[in-house]
């Protein structure tokens, strides 16, 4: 069982594993693996704590109902699964600033968190605009050969590659 304690596996082993996982999620749960709707639901649930039931009436939350569902549990599962793998392989550690960021912009946690917050806002907004993320469009949608997903996945990487080069080649 040594493979369980290895920090990294071949990316091909991981990719084939995710592909096989998708067969079972179609067969058993009749759903493709996806993540970003869960963040929209959670955002609405938090808003509902403060503003009450009228939040349910927003047109977007009529479409995306504010309930804990299959995908919501899937995202919770990702946190747990990653934690298990990290603990088994001795790779779990608290970290504020990743090293590529620190090399370019220094080790200040506050700067990194503010930038991550801004990035998260774009990511969440864009994921809902495109109706999917790197999982829902990038893997599950492209493997179904959905036109919407091939276009979205292409734009994720075009936008991401250009922005990463601006951040690390022009600014940093």
């Amino acid at each position, binding site marked *: 069982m040594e493979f369980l304690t*290895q920090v*990294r596996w071949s990316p091909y082993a991981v990719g084939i594993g*995710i*592909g096989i996982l*998708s067969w079972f999620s179609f*067969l058993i*749960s009749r759903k493709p*693996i996806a993540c970003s709707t869960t*963040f*929209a639901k959670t*955002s*609405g649930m*938090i808003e509902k704590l403060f503003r009450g039931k009228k939040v349910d009436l927003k047109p977007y939350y009529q479409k995306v109902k504010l309930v*804990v569902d299959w*995908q919501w*549990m*899937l*995202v919770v*599962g*990702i946190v*747990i*699964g*990653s934690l*298990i793998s*990290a603990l088994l392989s001795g*790779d779990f550690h*608290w*970290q504020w600033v*990743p090293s590529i960021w620190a090399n370019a912009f220094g080790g200040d946690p506050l700067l990194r968190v503010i*930038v*991550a*917050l801004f*990035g*998260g*806002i*774009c*990511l*969440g*907004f*864009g*994921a*809902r*605009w495109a109706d999917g*993320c790197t*999982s829902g469009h990038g*893997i599950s949608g492209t493997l*179904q*050969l*959905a*036109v*919407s997903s091939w*276009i*979205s996945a292409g734009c*994720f*990487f*075009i*936008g991401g*590659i250009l922005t*990463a080069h601006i951040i*690390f080649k022009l600014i940093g």
Partner: protein
Amino acid sequence: MKHSEIRPRKDKSSLVWGLGFGIVFGFLLHKGGATKYDVIIGQLLLTDFTVVKIMLSAVFTGMIGIYTLKTLGLVELYPKYGSFGKNIIGGLIFGVGFAVLGYCPGTIAGAIGNGYLDALIGGLAGILIGTGLFAALYPRLSRAILNKGDFGDLTLPQLFKVNDWIVVIPVAVLIFLLLYWLERAGL
């Protein structure tokens, strides 16, 4: 508690399956290194091709399996409705966020499990604000942009009006060749 007791059993087992699929998915994402900012940014800077290798081998394996199951009549597909206004503009905004944050909605959950606090404190809060903002603007965006260039829930075989396998096989071959070329190039 009472509320969950009167829920139909089917609903509850669906939640348990969701959790189970998530645990395996998160485990694999961590083993692949995809829960790490450095790996994702390395991909976007085109210096580390781990993320593309994981995604393409998942698509290769998933596509062949799902289309086999579909041909056997065991599963149906769930392609998302799309439009140019939705997928191009939304995709590019997502891409900007992907590079600035260095995680995506799935891998940020894995990053949190890995102990990364920029993901938990900054990124997660940002995603919740961003999705909330979208929900607030949805009625206006929906009228103005989201339906522009609507093409529905098409798949590529439907677009080209051919048998599924006429597309599946060439896409599988192309993915295989691309991965082979990446390895040969030492990337």
